[in-house]
């Protein structure tokens, strides 16, 4: 069993004038290769803060964050950008596609920053789009797509550079239950194929599919639940 992402006594403190907000408070947490983890908790409990640190968009103010065994908490902005580009994929609640780019162009964005040759990027973007069931929407713009379709594009984009970990913040939050279930089905497929998933959610359906549910409260881990019968491919979580 290998750990892909690990928080060691990680804290994130926001300084609001004279008061401190401990958005993340000495958290120790390990995510295993191939794991499907759900992160739950009330609003303001620190879910997004944790996801931002896991996604190298933010740094812990204290403690360590190890990504693929390497401490990244001291990296500079360019190095963090490289980590995001090469090892992390993001799926957002609001899809966050770039409005003036087509489906294919949106999927190509991470590959452009990885200096992938355009022809190669185009081919990979096409195959990802087809895999997400968007074969007939390749040259459409986001505004011409439904919410479910947009989220499929976002998932395809997150997979462009074959990331080690896929991070999702409320991926079904803007979708109706039927479309949400479809998206969750796609995530299941990705996890079945070995992709590590960390999903922030309020949705009990997500928790039902995950191997493990971490519940946050006031910046601390309040509860960790393992799902019986749910285990990462190739072995159970540690």
């Amino acid at each position, binding site marked *: 069993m290998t750990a892909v992402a690990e928080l060691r006594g990680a804290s994130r403190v926001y300084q609001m004038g004279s008061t401190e907000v401990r958005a993340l408070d000495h958290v120790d947490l390990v995510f295993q290769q191939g794991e499907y983890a759900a992160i739950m908790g009330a609003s303001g409990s620190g879910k997004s803060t944790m996801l*931002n640190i896991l*996604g190298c*968009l*933010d740094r812990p103010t204290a403690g360590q964050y190890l990504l693929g065994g390497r401490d990244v908490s001291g990296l500079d*902005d*360019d190095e963090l*950008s*490289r980590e*995001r*580009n*090469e090892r992390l994929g*993001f799926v*957002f609640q609001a899809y*966050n*596609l*770039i*409005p*003036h780019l087509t489906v294919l162009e949106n999927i190509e*964005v*991470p590959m*452009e*920053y*990885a*200096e992938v040759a*355009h022809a190669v990027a185009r081919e990979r973007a096409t195959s990802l789009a087809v895999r997400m069931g968007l074969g007939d929407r390749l040259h459409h713009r986001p505004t011409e797509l439904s919410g479910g379709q947009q989220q499929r594009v976002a998932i395809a*984009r997150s997979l462009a*550079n074959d990331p080690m970990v896929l991070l999702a913040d409320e991926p079904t939050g803007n979708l109706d239950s039927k479309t949400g279930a479809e998206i969750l089905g796609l995530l299941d497929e990705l996890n079945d194929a070995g992709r590590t998933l960390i999903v922030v959610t309020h949705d009990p359906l997500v928790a039902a599919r995950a191997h493990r549910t971490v519940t946050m409260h006031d910046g601390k881990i309040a509860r960790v639940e393992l799902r019986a019968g749910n285990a990462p491919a190739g072995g159970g979580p540690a």
Partner: protein
Amino acid sequence: MNSRRMIALAWKSLWLHRLRSLLTVLGIVFGVSSVVAMLAIGEGASQEAQAQIRRLGSRNILLASIKPPTDEDAGQQGSRVSRYGLLRKDLRGILASVPDIARAVPRRDMPVEARVGGRKVTTKLMGTEAAYAEVANLRMQAGRFLTAAEGHARKPVCVLGDGIARKLYRNVNPVGQELRAGSHYYRVIGLLASRGEGTGGTAGAGGESDMAIFVPIETMRERNSDVAVTRSSGSFTREHVELHRITVEAANGDEKTISRVAAALRSFIDLRHKKKGDVRITVPQELIRQARESKRIFTIVLAMIAAISLLVGGIGIMNIMLATVVERTREIGVRRAMGARRGHIVRQFLAETVLLAAFGGVIGLGLGMAIPAVVTYFGWMQTVVTPFSLVLAFGISALVGVVFGLYPAARAADLDPVEALRRE
């Protein structure tokens, strides 16, 4: 991300807001087009001026008789003869006492009425010597110029300017024909080539030779007195002028010799004419220097106008780019999450600004070349668009793009990714 992809991306987002892009670059368009147009007009004017001055002869110093202002009351009385200007003994004195002179050629002008058949033209008879053709840089179209022998023999011969020949003879070759000027007859022995004054048709710089009839100065002296009578609105003006012009050619065309000769001539005239102010001394080489100097000043003024309009244009672009950054904050956050480094964001926005400015630059070049073309087409002025001005104007517009693009681009790159993603 390679630069071609970067530019394609920039083009795409500019095209998305075509009208806004166009309005944004108007400042640059006017800045660049005014640089190109004004430089073209300035260059044309300066070339025209220099050509005119060169026609006067850069080795020459021109002395001309002018009616002094103090003598004006004499004209009103109608009876008195006003006596002023260069004298024959001035010519002899100059030749004898001023050093470094190759030659000095006199000219005396007389208003006459020239007749051929039934055609009458009021013009000027110019009495001069054989060397005049060379010092005044006159070229023959047919026949030959006056000779010294004809002068000594006081022959009744003449050489016609191109303009007067056309008026008197239309399409007939005048060489060998007779003409009457005043009360005397002359045989035409030569026809001058047209001086073809600049497009503006300003008759400066010896353009007068086109309408002149040249005769040997000795012949003129024998046939006419030094007093010329002109009648204007009922009253007569009598003027006693021995010579209207002396063209002095220096032994050498270098600046030192010219200024030495000019200084000697000035003191000679001061001495002989007691500062009456009836002789004007023109040094074409000094005029060339003045023309260069005024061109330099003109260029500096233009550069300042251009700099101001480009500055305004640049600020306009910066303003729009700052608004664009705010508008696209979410996109910036997404790109950063996907792995864009700060440098990528800087380059993306810089590419847009530079492309925008260069686009304005190209439109400006087009407009800037069209304006002088129109000016020349309607014959208002001679204009010269130099390749240098095009390169300069375009280079400046691209530079404006970089300079005024850097700040918005830096603002975009410095956005915190988490904040940017949260922004609506």
